[in-house]
């Protein structure tokens, strides 16, 4: 399931929905991304983040997330999957994203969870605007995220 929303989410309740009443799920893996209060700038050391605004491309976001989820379910034997991504203005410590996968097999749940967040980071049309003491800055994409996504690419 895919959800793009401004509201926060309840991790326990969301994971429970994936498994409640099921007796065939051996493992649930999840990743929760949070707003950090520190920005690492190679040229300037650390700078404090006071808020972060998540912009997205309505329509394409949902489409791309659904495709990424479908890709995960094609690659791994999953009994359930969930992607929730928040948009709008968030403060440090707030939750941004939840990715969760449920499978009868532990490795399938763990690997597909990692796949989902890696691909989401490089393919879903979200952009982060960080507010700092020196003003608001659009976050630049990171090569390490591209590399993380690249290892899931099938040759």
């Amino acid at each position: 399931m895919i959800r793009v929303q401004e509201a926060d989410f309840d991790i326990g309740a969301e994971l429970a929905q994936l498994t409640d009443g099921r007796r065939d799920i051996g493992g649930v893996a999840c990743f929760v991304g949070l707003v950090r209060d520190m920005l690492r700038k190679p040229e300037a050391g650390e700078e404090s983040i006071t808020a972060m605004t998540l912009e997205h491309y309505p329509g394409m976001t949902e489409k791309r997330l659904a495709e990424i989820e479908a890709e995960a379910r094609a690659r791994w034997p999953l009994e359930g999957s969930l992607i929730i991504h928040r948009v709008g203005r968030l403060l440090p410590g707030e939750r941004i994203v939840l990715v969760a996968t449920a499978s009868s097999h532990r490795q399938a749940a763990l690997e597909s969870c990692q796949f989902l967040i890696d691909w989401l980071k490089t393919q879903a049309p979200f952009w982060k605007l960080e507010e700092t003491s020196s003003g608001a800055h659009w976050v630049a994409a990171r090569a390490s995220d591209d590399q993380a996504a690249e290892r899931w690419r099938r040759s």
Partner: protein
Amino acid sequence: MKLLYFAWLRGKLGKASEELSPPPGVATVGQLLDWLETLSPAYKAALADRRVVKVAVNLEYVGAEHPVAPGDEVALFPPVTGG
């Protein structure tokens, strides 16, 4: 043709979307970007580094050779940074 701009591209262009009618010679994404650059210095500056301008046509990522047509929705945006 509906153009959409996101993140700093929206900021640099001062608008989130617009309706444009490129001339008949504009048949691909690359040609569309080239034509946009001729519209004003703001477009020229925003599109100067093509490596950081990603394009989606009708909600799909595409490359510079992809065709564009009058009814298309064309979105320009920087590399994504969600998650």
